[in-house]
């Protein structure tokens, strides 16, 4: 657990060897640290021990004579003697295994767990070899789906309570439970209430038998056929440590790896299962020019010709780049240098108008996840629904509140997944008094412990300038900030300089540092952000638009603007799939996906971790860094030729990244990059117009499962997208005479969508909350990215 620093002061003896243990440490852990592995099923180092399985019985003498005791339940005490290999211990282990196997079907040949099964392995190592049980075993229907992702084979269950403890204590979703009694005890859900937790895949990983299996992996491989590599999940910015397992050049499974600083071994289901999209047969495999398949040399030639001609005719700022948050640090750096050092434009943005100003994110004093989770500290949540956007961060914050006495205070525009753990919630009307509320909340904060603000967009339909004011309030209280931007490697992209006014290493343009020397030149003036780039493209000022893993049409806040921009500009799109924006592109370059490239990524704390290639990309798709290197080459500049060399060059221009490669070799859990750029002056947010009585104010939220390509292209996850609904406060619903299920039309000055109503007292009165980017609805038709807030008129469809 996180008590690594605790001194080892308790001397015990394990199998005759002296062992120094930490006060309070469990015997099973102390023995393992000393190299003595005690077999176990129910004990899991990230969950409270329950002593369910008795497999860990060893002889423990704490002064009153040796007795068989479960080593997962007994903390060390001075002069304790532990014997793990005595005749009595062996007999106990044999007995426990014989009992566990009484009702076990032993269908190993058709069980996914076979070959990596603790029950199988420990039976071989510690079991009696033969069973005396001749009676009929219990039988159940095999297997039953307990969710769209997880199947349960009750016959195989040894009732270790790991999955049920995980669901209740770690995820806070007790949707599976022991049912029945005695030998007919089983794990199950309530009838017709599936185990629809965002974290259900973890139960498959920690089940010590094959009782819980993942639909996406069932019967696809045998463990001994799998090859694996360690890597980092890139689906959101938490950056969970994973092991990627493949067979025959297909990624088949992704499991969590315990990184004490980040994910504690857990993954969310989106991050675990969206690797399915890698093997999709609609992946882009060849370049497209004008919609038809082309050779790489022709496609790159067309792209370079367009860029060169535009620069010559209209200057470098007629070329702009959007995206980069999907890339590795190396690729982000290559694209940043291509745009800013070679083309010479500063019109570059890795966020699509759905994030925060880069200098604000990089200027605020940064907190780590561990800082945020300090026992008895204070967490202020000003931002998105962490459960929906940064799920494993949700687990860590939840743990801090529930187990470690941290206090959570929530500010925003409505109930989120964390609200039930909040000591105080304060929900503002969008465009209303968020700043006032922040002041009130800040006044009452307990300043005796650390204060961490988890900081992001509270609504995608509101001008983020208001958040800079909120940040300033908490900054004055000495708070640190954990930025909650969700796009995979957005923090790596920012550190590489993929934002207007920014250079690699959290430097501003006017303080370029070594980049000028290495690159030859840096842009002279601060460029435009995503909204301004798209506006300029729509006005014909930006003539070439590079989209690097960006889909502003579907995935940006202002659909109409993006559509016009893409229509007018020459578009060069680099992506793994043909997105809505890609279909409008003149040149499309197929990119390698996650698990198909080597490199590093940087998470929301600023922690750099490695991603490793496990499979080769489909068709002729190439890594993003290579595409940038080739474009640069054709524009007459030679870039470093591989990820290691790119990282080395990033280290040369960005202080924090100087020795990252060697530091990563020493510390595979990641290396924290610190340092901040000067904090911008707090802008005054444009005051939103007073709400009119006849309209509702839009709160645009995100859901874990949305229409993002990787999710939508993963067959297990695509059906889980909840779809779009209009969530209304009960007072508004009754005033407007609508009830749950009524289909209404929401119309802004920009556009209209039809949605069913859900009545939800977690939405503030006068607001309507709608999830963005769901597969069934183009909510971003309602928005104009330049409005401070979005007001919509609600009408009942007849």
């Amino acid at each position: 657990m996180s008590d690594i620093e605790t001194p080892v002061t308790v001397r015990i003896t394990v199998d005759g060897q002296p062992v120094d243990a930490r006060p309070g440490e469990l015997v099973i852990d102390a023995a393992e640290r000393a190299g003595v592995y005690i077999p176990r099923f129910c004990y899991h180092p990230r969950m409270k021990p329950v002593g369910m399985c008795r497999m860990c019985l060893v002889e423990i003498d704490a002064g009153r004579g040796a007795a068989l005791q479960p080593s997962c339940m007994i903390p060390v005490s001075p002069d304790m003697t532990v014997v793990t290999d005595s005749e009595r211990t062996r007999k106990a282990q044999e007995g426990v295994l014989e009992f566990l196997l009484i009702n076990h079907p032993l269908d190993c040949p058709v069980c996914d767990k076979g070959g990596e099964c603790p029950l199988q392995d420990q039976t071989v190592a510690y079991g009696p070899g033969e069973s005396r049980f001749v009676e009929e075993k219990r039988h159940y229907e095999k297997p039953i789906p307990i969710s769209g992702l997880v199947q349960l084979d009750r016959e195989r269950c040894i009732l270790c309570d790991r999955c049920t403890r995980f669901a209740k204590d770690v995820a806070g979703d007790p949707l599976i439970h022991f049912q029945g009694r005695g030998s007919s005890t089983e794990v199950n859900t309530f009838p017709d209430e599936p185990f629809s937790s965002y974290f259900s895949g973890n139960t498959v990983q920690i089940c010590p038998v094959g009782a819980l299996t993942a639909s996406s992996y069932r019967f696809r491989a045998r463990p001994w056929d799998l090859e694996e590599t360690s890597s980092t999940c890139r689906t959101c910015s938490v950056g969970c440590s994973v092991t990627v397992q493949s067979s025959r050049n297909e990624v088949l499974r992704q499991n969590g790896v315990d990184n004490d600083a980040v994910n504690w071994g857990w993954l969310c289901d989106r991050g675990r299962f969206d690797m399915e999209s890698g093997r999709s047969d609609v992946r882009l495999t060849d370049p497209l020019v004008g919609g038809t398949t082309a050779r790489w040399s022709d496609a790159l030639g067309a792209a370079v010709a367009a860029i060169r001609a535009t620069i010559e005719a209209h200057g470098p700022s007629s070329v702009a780049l959007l995206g980069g948050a999907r890339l590795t640090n190396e690729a982000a750096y290559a694209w940043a240098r291509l745009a800013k050092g070679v083309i010479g434009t500063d019109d570059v943005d890795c966020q699509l108008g759905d994030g925060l100003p880069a200098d604000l994110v990089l200027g605020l004093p940064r907190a780590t996840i561990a800082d945020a989770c300090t026992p008895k500290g204070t967490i202020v949540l000003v931002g998105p629904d962490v459960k929906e956007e940064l799920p494993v961060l949700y687990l860590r914050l939840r743990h801090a509140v529930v187990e470690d006495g941290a206090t959570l205070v929530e500010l925003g525009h409505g109930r989120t997944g964390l609200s039930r753990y909040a000591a105080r919630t304060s929900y503002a009307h969008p465009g209303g008094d968020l700043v006032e509320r922040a002041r009130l909340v800040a006044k009452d904060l307990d300043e005796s412990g650390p204060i961490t603000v988890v900081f992001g967009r509270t609504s995608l339909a509101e001008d983020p300038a208001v958040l800079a004011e909120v940040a300033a309030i908490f900054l004055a209280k000495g708070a640190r900030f954990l930025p909650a931007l969700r796009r995979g490697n957005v923090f790596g992209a920012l550190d590489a300089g993929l934002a207007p006014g920014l250079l690699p290493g959290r430097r501003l343009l006017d303080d370029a540092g070594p980049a000028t020397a290495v690159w030859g030149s840096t842009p002279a003036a601060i460029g435009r952000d995503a909204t301004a780039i798209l506006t300029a493209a729509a006005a014909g000022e930006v003539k070439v638009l590079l989209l690097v893993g960006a889909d502003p049409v579907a995935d940006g806040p202002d659909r109409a603007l993006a559509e016009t921009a893409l229509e007018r500009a020459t578009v060069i799109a680099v992506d793994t799939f043909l997105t809505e924006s890609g279909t409008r592109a003149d040149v499309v370059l197929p990119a390698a996906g996650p698990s198909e490239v080597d490199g590093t990524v940087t998470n929301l704390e600023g922690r750099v971790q490695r991603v490793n290639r496990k499979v080769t990309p489909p068709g002729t798709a190439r890594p993003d860094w290579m595409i940038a290197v080739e474009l640069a080459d054709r524009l007459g500049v030679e870039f470093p030729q591989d990820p290691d060399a790119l990282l080395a060059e990033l280290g040369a221009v960005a202080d924090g990244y100087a020795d990252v490669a060697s530091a990563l070799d020493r510390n595979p859990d990641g290396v924290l990059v610190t340092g901040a750029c000067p904090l911008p002056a707090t802008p005054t947010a444009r005051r939103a117009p007073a709400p009119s009585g006849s309209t509702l104010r839009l709160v645009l939220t995100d859901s874990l499962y949305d229409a993002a390509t990787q999710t939508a292209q993963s067959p297990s996850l695509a059906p889980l997208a909840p779809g779009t609904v209009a969530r209304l406060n009960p007072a508004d619903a009754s005033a407007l005479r609508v009830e749950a299920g009524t289909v209404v039309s929401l119309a802004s000055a920009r556009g209209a969508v039809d949605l069913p109503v859900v009545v939800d007292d977690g939405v503030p009165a006068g607001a309507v909350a709608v999830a963005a980017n769901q597969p069934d609805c183009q909510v971003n038709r309602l928005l104009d990215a330049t409005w401070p807030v979005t007001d919509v008129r609600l009408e009942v469809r007849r």
Partner: protein
Amino acid sequence: MARLEPANVEIAHEIISRYPRPKSALIPLLHLAQEQDGWVSDEAMVHIAELVGCTPAEVIGTCSFYEMFKREPVGRYLVNVCTNIACQLLGAEDLLHHAERTLGVRAGTTTPDGLFTVEDVECIAACTEAPCLTVNYRYFYKVGPSDFDAIIADLRAGRRPTRCAAEPGEDGEIPAHGTLHRVRQSIPGDRRAGNADPDTAGEPAWLGAGGAS
């Protein structure tokens, strides 16, 4: 069948307020549901979950642990025939077969008119009076086939069975399955524990106020 009726929701709230943690009220609430419907339906479990703030899976976890909570409808009268060793030696199996034959059902099932469910049960702690059975947990001692027929005939006719053990204060009435008692426990508001986290809350009012008079 059904969620709790409004009157029972009132009672449920009173029951919940007796405990520091609402979830502690699960078992009395399951009894309340069983009293209302004669069994515990899925809808009732969902309703109880809402009332105590847990998930239906947690309610069914508790409910399914106890044999006496029926999660399928049973007859108005639940006839439990003991076939454990003492009763068995004195003819309990013949009694069970007699019960099955005369009622036309197998143990574990219910007569089509919904009046009787027969169950074969383990020791019910009346070995000195073997063979014995209970009807809705009211005891009948030293029961032979003709005694059994008389009990059934009385119940069918709406009479109080004559052979019902006349414990002090009992009048032989056998209410429908699910009814635990005729006098419902009621604790005045000022003597209830009240919902509060016992780890952080102070001493409950009733402890301090000389409640143990």
